[in-house]
């Protein structure tokens, strides 16, 4: 009832500068961005170490794996689903790839197998949550346990270490370590390079392609999407496959960074960080909303906060409390201000 203006301003989309500015200011990302800047300004003043190239690149590396997975989660959340199994898939795929490397498989083949395992688990999640007619909360809760168990079975519960002593080929190891620990231009960590690459591809896929459009449509209303001829189930399954692929990629990179993992510990509880980052960045559990840019900002908020708390020598126990409070605040502020925006 608010928009009965017969204004012809849609013509040519000639929005005035103020209208455009208003749109930018009202965007969900802006709020998160402002919060991030304020946080950075504070840390710059409060600590000496924060605003140094070294520290910032370090933050960049620390958030990369979380960021890669949060981008996948953004797709799943926009499609109005959720994936709780990402931490387990991260562990399973990484450990499988690691064991194959130790077994002197070709490095790339080992990595591809790891990625395929992730995509396979994602496909199973997706198929069960659509054709299987189960809520994704249930299927991925199950998969969380199944994948974790599978990792325990194949490693027999023992830690997997990827080094020459364990039997890996030294040349392959060098390349593998480079993926996780290396730098390009001597300063930029490889993990960050992967994150940036995934972010760029993820942004294009979501905001520029037909597939991305379908993801938004399906999350907005699966009935309306179906009636529009969109294959709802297939679209949802693809988001889970992407999520599985990115979880596996992050898991493999983490093992290349710290070349030892244990099925019972690697990536436990990671799913909550991943979901939190996407949600802080504006993705909604109600589906249909969220952007990759927002998620990246969400990941940065969590990363900078954690870094800042460390630099300020806050105890790790208090760090957890602070991060939890920020998650609630970030979503809360959006909701509370949204009430006014909608009426």
């Amino acid at each position, binding site marked *: 009832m608010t*928009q009965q*203006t017969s204004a012809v301003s*849609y013509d040519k989309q000639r*929005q005035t500068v103020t209208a455009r500015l208003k749109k930018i200011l009202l965007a969900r990302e802006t709020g998160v961005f402002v919060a991030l800047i304020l946080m950075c300004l504070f840390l710059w003043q409060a600590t000496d170490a924060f605003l140094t190239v070294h520290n910032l690149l370090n933050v960049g590396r620390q958030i990369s794996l979380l960021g890669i997975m949060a981008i996948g989660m953004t797709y799943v959340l926009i499609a109005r689903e959720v994936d709780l199994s990402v931490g387990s898939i991260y562990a399973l795929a990484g450990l499988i790839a690691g064991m194959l490397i130790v077994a002197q498989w070709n490095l790339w083949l080992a990595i591809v197998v790891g990625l395929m395992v992730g995509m396979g688990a994602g496909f199973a999640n997706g198929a069960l949550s659509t054709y299987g007619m189960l809520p994704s909360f249930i299927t991925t809760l199950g998969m969380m346990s199944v994948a974790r168990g599978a990792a325990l079975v194949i490693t027999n519960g023992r830690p997997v270490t990827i080094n020459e002593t364990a039997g890996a080929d030294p040349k392959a190891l060098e390349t593998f370590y480079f993926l996780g620990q290396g730098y390009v231009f001597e300063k930029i960590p490889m993990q960050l390079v992967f994150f940036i690459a995934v972010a760029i591809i993820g942004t294009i896929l979501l905001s520029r*392609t037909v597939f*991305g459009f*379908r993801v938004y449509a399906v999350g907005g209303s699966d009935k309306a999407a*179906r*009636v529009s*001829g969109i294959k709802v189930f297939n679209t949802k399954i693809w988001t889970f496959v992407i999520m599985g692929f990115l979880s596996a990629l992050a898991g493999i990179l983490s093992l290349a960074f710290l070349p030892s993992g244990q099925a019972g510990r690697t990536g436990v509880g990671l799913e909550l960080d991943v979901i939190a980052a996407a949600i802080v960045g504006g993705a909604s559990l109600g589906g249909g909303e969220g952007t990759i840019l927002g998620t990246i900002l969400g990941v940065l908020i969590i990363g900078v906060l954690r870094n800042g708390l460390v630099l300020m020598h806050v105890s790790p126990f208090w760090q957890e409390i602070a991060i939890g409070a920020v998650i609630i605040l970030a979503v809360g502020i959006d909701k509370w201000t949204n009430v006014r925006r909608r009426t």
Partner: protein
Amino acid sequence: MNDQISPIVELRDISKRFPGVLALDNVSMNVLPGEIHAVVGENGAGKSTLMNILAGELQPDSGDIVFQGNRCAIPNPYVSQQMGISVVYQELALCPNLSIAENVSLSSASTSNALSFVKRRRFAVKAREVLSQLGITDIDPNRPISKLTVAEQQLVEIAKAISGQVKLLILDEPNSALTREETDNLFAILRQLRDSGVGMIYVSHRLEEALSLCDRITVLRDGKWIDTVAAANVTVDDLIAMMVGRAVDDLYQRATDATTHTQTIFELHDLRSGNALKGMSFALKAGEILGVAGLPGAGKDELVECCFGLRSYTGKIDIQGNAVSIHSPSEAIQLGLAFIPADRRASGALLVMDVKGNIVAANLPSVSKYGLMKQPAIRATSQKYVKELDIRIASLSQKMGTLSGGNQQKVILARGLATNPSVLILHEPTRGIDVGAKAEIYRILQDLAAEGVGVLIVSSELPELIGQCDRILVMHDGRITGQFTRDEAAEEPILACAMGQTTHF
């Protein structure tokens, strides 16, 4: 009139402003005890805002509410209820998992101590008492709501509303989902309540009914009070003129005379689906507007679902003479069908998406290349339809959820038209849409038919079908029981066929 009786509630110069819109502009009205007072107006006229103020959901910016002679404020719904104001909303607000009795006693559950024991037996007694007050004795109060028909749920809703000491009952489109018989039954109950001294406000789009049921009618337009008239002194046309601010001529009349239609473009042969469709055969010709009438449960819903690949069927479908099988909406779209679903909010609109996204959603191949969306093409397509269908929006990026019902429906229509269909299937195309937008949608459908599109309207609004269609098919129990040409069409014989009492071919 009735100056000697003091009103139950009197609204004086109520104004309410929302960001960007003055929803109510100095509106005054009153409701007398033992009166049914209709409030009519187009969508956006301010009806719901006014009702929400009485319900305590919204606070007026200025103006007074006088309840039984005392000036008062209604800060929240709880106070409203305590004062004796009950609201029956269009969307049913029952807990489907609870029984009739529990739902009827729901408001008492909100007032008593949280740790006191639930007295289920007393609930049942109370529910039976209230229901019998409504003249309903043949219903088990222990049945869960989810097992009831919509009409029965509606009655439970009213029972719940009058279970306390109700003085003012507000009904917001209470019969939009009811059949004629159920509506008659409901009205009888409302009249009975009126005679017991309850004051009622009745909000509806159905003007004929407002005239027959109500004592006085208040017309709102654009948030302003236009007039309050005695129902006996006005006609539907008078009301429409007041609502729209101009006379809408022949709302339900097809303007151009139908040309002769020769080429069959869409034909069903012995279509069957489960227990719902028991052999449907008919042919739709190019340029024809064909209506399908029938009561709820006759199989109309299933018919449109089969035609658009949303439900499996046996039998044969021909499109332009070629036998096709339709398993999914995407196939149906490729075959040149377009579908406008009945439930706009749930299965039509992509509410969180913007207008342009909604318009191109069914037509992605033509606005993309190598899987990439072409923004200029999206804008061009959207603009074309926004202009053609006169969709009123502030910008193409406006969120669908912020549009009025009529504009949403036009956007959904645009989505269907963007696929260049040869057959357009509409299910309840004007449900919950105001008079002005209705007339515009009818005009669009007539233009499409004139261009040679075959239009199939499946609707439960008989005046709409009789006014718009070249031919009307009537369904009863999964079969066609009647066919009426434009000249033969009239409400009574169509209803007789719909109830399975007679057939007419």
